[in-house]
C-alpha cells in the first residue's frame, strides 16, 4: 500500500502551507456548510426565544380561559388554545426554556461524569479503567426509560431529577468516546515523545491528549442534546414533569389527549420538538464532517492534465513472439480539486515470457498503480485516460476481458500478507473458493489441490494451516499462503507487489527462493514491484526504473546494474549506504574489550 498512500498522501510543501487544523477554521467552515449554518441559526433563534420568553410571549402561559378551550387559531391565539384554554404559542415559548435547560442539565451531567472518568481511565488504565468499563457496560444494558420509571416510582415526578438521572445513564457515551480516543492517543508516538521530553502528565493531557478528543466531544454533545430532547419530550408525554411548568412534552401530551377534538394542536409541538432535535443532530453531523476534513490530506497535484476522454488504441496489434505483456503509453490519474493528478505519465513496458521483470522506484513513483492497472483493479476513483495494456491477445483495459483472465492466467501477490486475507474465513476456505467458483473444481478436488499447494509453498503442516484463521498464522506463513493462492490456477503472469517488504530479512530470503523455484519450475513470468535494489539483484532478469510516473530506464539487470545510463538510476545506486564505510572501533577499554558486561 506504500504507493497508494502516496497518491493520496503526498503533498507539496506550498499547497499545504496553512492546512494545519485550528479551531477558528473549523468554525468558519461550519458557517459555510449549509446544513450546519441552518441548524446553527435555528438553534440560536430557539434559544433566544427561550431566554427572552417573558418579553415575547403574547399571553401568560398559565392563564386559563375556560371560554376558549381548544380554540382554533385566531388573531388573539395565533396557534389556538389547549384543553384547559391556555395559549399554545405562549406555552411553546415558555416550554422552550424548560426543555432546553433540561436538555443542558442532562448533557452537562453526562459530560461531567463521562469526560473526566474517560480521561483518567484512558490515560492511566489499570484497575480504574477495568472498573469503569464494567460500570459502563452495566449502564448500557439498562433501558433508560425503565430506570427513570423506577426512580419516579419512589421520588415522584420531577423533570430535573429525571434529567439528572438520564445524564448519568448517558455518561457512557462520553466515557467510551474519550476513553477510546485517549487510549489511542496514549499509544501515539508523539505522546510518548512528549513523555520522554520530560513533560508533566497534566501538560501532556492538556496539550496532546485533549486536542485529540476535543472535536469528537463537541460532536457528541450535539448528538446527545438531540437524544435528550426527544427523551425529555417522551417523559413529559408519560406525565413525568410538573404539570404546572410548561414544557414541549407537556404541550404535546395535552394535544394528544385532545387529538379527536382538535387534531391541529398536535402539529406545532411535534414540529418544534422534531426540528430542534434534527437541528442538533445536523449540527453534530456538520461538525463531524468539518472536523474530519482537517485531518484528511489533499491529493498530491503532480502533473496537471485536462480531463480528456480515453484515447486508447482501438485495435490490438499482435505481440511479437516471446512477448507476454505489453504496456504502451499508459497514463493514470486521479481527479482532484484542480483537475487531475497524474500518477502514471505515459509508460511503456514489455514483459517477455518466462522472465522476472523488476519494476523499481521510490514511494510515489507510480509502480503499484501500474501493477493494479494491469490487473484491472485500480481504485474506482482512478482514471486511465491514455494507452493500452495488452496481454497475449487480450485487451486488459477492457473490463470484461480482464475479468476473464484475472485469477486464471494473471495472478497477484500483495505486499502486506495478513491484511490480504479475509479475517473471517479460514485459510483453506479462501484457497478453495476461487478453485471452485473460477476453475469449476469439485469440493473434493479443490481441497486436495489446496493441500497440495500449501505443501508446494513449503508449509510443513498443510492440514493445520488449511484449518487456521489468518490471525493464527505468522506473516511469513501468510505470504506463503498468498503465493499458493496466486499460483493455484497455473497462471502465465504473476504480479507481485513488494511481496517481501513486510517480511523479516530471513523470511524475505526464503520467500524469494520460493518465487524463484516456482518460476523455474513452471516457466511463468513475474512482474516484481519493489523499492529494494537487492531484491532486484537477487531474482530479476530485466528491470525498469520508475520515477514520478515515468519509466526512465529499462533493460537486462546486468546492463542496468553495471552500466546505468540514466542519471536517476545512477543516483539510486549512489544513495546506497556505503558498505565499506565502517566507523573506527574505539580503542578497547583496558578492563574489557566486549560490550556485554556479563554473560
Amino acid at each position, binding site marked *: 500500500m506504500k504507493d497508494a498512500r502516496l497518491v493520496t498522501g503526498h503533498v507539496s510543501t506550498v499547497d499545504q*502551507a496553512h492546512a*494545519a487544523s485550528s479551531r477558528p477554521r473549523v468554525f468558519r467552515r461550519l458557517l459555510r456548510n449549509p446544513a450546519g449554518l441552518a441548524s446553527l441559526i435555528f438553534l440560536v433563534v430557539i434559544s433566544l426565544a427561550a431566554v427572552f420568553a417573558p418579553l415575547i410571549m403574547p399571553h401568560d402561559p398559565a392563564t386559563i380561559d375556560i371560554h376558549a378551550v381548544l380554540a382554533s387559531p385566531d388573531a388573539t391565539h395565533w396557534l389556538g388554545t389547549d384543553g384547559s384554554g391556555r395559549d399554545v404559542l405562549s406555552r411553546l415559548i415558555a416550554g422552550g426554556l424548560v426543555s432546553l435547560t433540561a436538555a443542558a442539565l442532562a448533557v452537562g451531567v453526562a459530560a461531567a461524569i463521562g469526560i473526566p472518568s474517560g480521561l483518567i481511565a484512558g490515560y492511566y488504565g489499570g484497575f480504574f479503567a477495568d472498573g469503569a468499563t464494567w460500570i459502563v457496560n452495566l449502564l448500557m444494558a439498562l433501558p433508560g426509560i425503565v430506570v427513570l420509571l423506577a426512580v419516579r416510582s419512589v421520588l415522584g415526578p420531577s423533570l430535573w431529577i429525571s434529567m439528572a438521572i438520564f445524564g448519568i445513564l448517558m455518561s457512557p457515551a462520553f466515557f467510551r468516546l474519550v476513553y477510546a480516543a485517549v487510549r489511542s492517543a496514549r499509544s501515539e508516538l508523539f505522546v510518548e515523545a512528549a513523555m520522554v521530553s520530560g513533560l508533566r502528565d497534566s501538560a501532556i493531557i492538556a496539550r496532546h491528549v485533549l486536542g485529540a478528543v476535543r472535536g469528537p466531544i463537541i460532536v457528541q454533545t450535539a448528538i446527545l442534546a438531540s437524544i435528550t430532547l426527544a427523551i425529555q419530550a417522551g417523559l413529559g408525554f408519560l406525565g413525568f414533569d410538573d404539570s404546572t411548568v410548561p414544557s414541549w412534552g407537556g404541550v404535546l401530551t395535552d394535544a394528544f389527549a385532545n387529538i379527536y377534538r382538535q387534531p391541529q394542536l398536535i402539529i406545532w409541538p411535534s414540529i418544534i420538538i422534531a426540528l430542534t432535535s434534527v437541528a442538533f443532530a445536523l449540527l453534530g453531523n456538520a461538525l463531524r464532517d468539518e472536523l474530519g476534513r482537517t485531518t484528511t490530506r489533499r491529493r498530491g497535484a503532480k502533473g496537471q492534465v485536462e480531463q480528456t476522454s480515453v484515447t486508447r488504441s482501438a485495435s490490438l496489434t499482435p505481440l511479437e513472439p516471446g512477448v507476454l505483456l505489453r504496456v504502451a503509453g499508459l497514463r493514470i490519474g486521479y481527479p482532484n480539486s484542480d483537475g487531475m493528478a497524474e500518477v502514471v505519465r505515459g509508460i511503456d513496458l514489455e514483459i517477455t515470457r518466462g522472465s522476472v521483470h523488476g519494476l523499481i522506484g521510490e514511494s510515489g513513483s507510480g509502480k503499484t498503480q501500474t501493477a493494479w492497472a494491469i490487473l484491472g483493479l485500480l481504485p474506482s476513483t482512478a482514471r486511465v485516460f491514455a494507452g493500452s495494456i495488452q496481454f497475449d491477445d487480450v485487451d486488459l483495459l477492457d473490463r470484461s476481458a480482464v475479468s476473464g483472465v484475472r485469477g486464471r492466467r494473471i495472478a497477484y501477490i500483495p505486499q502486506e500478507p495478513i491484511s490480504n486475507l479475509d479475517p473471517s474465513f479460514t485459510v483453506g476456505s479462501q484457497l478453495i473458493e476461487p478453485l471452485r467458483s473460477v476453475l469449476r473444481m469439485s469440493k473434493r478436488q479443490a481441497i486436495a489441490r489446496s493441500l497440495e499447494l500449501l505443501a508446494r509453498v513449503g508449509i510443513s503442516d498443510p492440514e493445520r494451516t488449511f484449518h487456521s484463521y489468518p490471525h493464527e498464522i505468522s506473516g511469513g506463513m501468510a505470504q506463503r499462503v498468498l503465493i499458493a493462492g496466486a499460483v493455484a490456477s497455473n497462471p502465465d503472469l504473476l504480479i507481485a507487489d513488494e511481496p517481501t517488504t513486510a517480511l523479516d530479512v530471513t523470511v524475505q530470503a526464503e520467500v524469494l527462493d520460493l518465487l524463484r523455484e516456482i518460476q523455474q519450475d513452471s516457466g511463468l513470468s513475474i512482474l516484481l514491484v519493489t523499492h529494494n535494489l*537487492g531484491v532486484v539483484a537477487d531474482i530479476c532478469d530485466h528491470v525498469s526504473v520508475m520515477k514520478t510516473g515515468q519509466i526512465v530506464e529499462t533493460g537486462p539487470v546486468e546492463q542496468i546494474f*553495471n552500466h546505468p545510463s540514466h542519471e536517476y538510476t545512477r543516483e539510486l545506486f549512489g544513495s*546506497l549506504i556505503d558498505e565499506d564505510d*565502517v*566507523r573506527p*572501533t574505539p580503542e578497547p577499554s583496558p578492563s574489557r574489550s566486549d560490550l556485554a558486561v556479563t554473560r
Partner: protein
Amino acid sequence: MMGEPLLRINDLVVEFGRSRWSRFRALDSVSLDIHPGETVGLVGESGSGKTTLGRAVLGLAPVTAGTVAFEGRDITRLPRRARRELANDIQVVFQDPYGSLSSTMSVQEILTEPLRASGIGRSDSIQRVRTLLDQVGLPANSGQRYPNEFSGGQRQRIAIARALAIRPRLIVCDEPVSALDLSTQARVLDLLRQIQDDTGVAYLFVSHDLAVVRHLSHRVAVMYRGQIVESGNASTVTRTPSNPYTQRLLLSSPIPDLNRQRERRMSRSMLQPQSA
C-alpha cells in the same frame, strides 16, 4: 581511554501480559554498555526484543528484573518526577516520522516544548530553536510551519532536532530511517553521524537493517528471541559474524550487486537447510 560507561544495562528482563499464563518474555537477561560518544547498534528481526530494550531504557517498558544505570545511577524504576528530570540526559527518535510529531503543533512549538519543560526561558528557547534547525539542515523559517508540510526525511530531521534540544548525553534511535526512501536514508544517517562528531552524544541505534547499523555503529549487538546472541565491534559482527543466526541474517539481506548476491545466495543455501 574509555572510563565508566554512560549507560549500563545489567541482566534486564522485561515481560508483558498480566496473567501468569499469558506472560511473554520480551527481554531475557540482556546486558549491554554504552560509553559516552559512541554508537551501539542493536540489530534483530521483528519480535527479537530490540525495540523493547530501547523502550526499557526510556522507561516506557515494564522491567521485571535487572537494572539500567545511567552514569552509575540506577534508573530502572524511577518515580515520575525523577524520570522527567532524566529527560535532560536521555532522548529518543522514533521510527515513524508521521506519528511521532503532533500534527496540530507548529515546528516551533514542538521544539520549544522540551526546552520549556526543562525550565528554559521563552527568548532563550526561540534562540535555541534557530540553532537546532540549522544543525539538522532545515530552513530557518521552518518554525512557523506544521509537520504535515514536510516530507518524511524532513520530519525525521525535526524529530532529531527535538531530541537534541536539551543537549542529551544519549539518544535512543528506534529504527529512525526504516520508513524513509533509500536516498533519504543515507542523508539522515550522515546527519546523525555529523551530530555525534559535533556534540559527542551517544546513540543506542535500533534497526533491523544490518547495512544501516553497520554504517553508523562503533559496536553492534545482535538480538534474537529476547537475547543478545552476538556482540562486538561493528566491522567484525556485520562482516564476519561467528554466531550462526547472525550469519544467516547477514546472508539473507540481498545486496544490489549481481555477482556478490549470487555468491551470498549460494553460501546461504549451504549454511542451513530451508526451514518453513
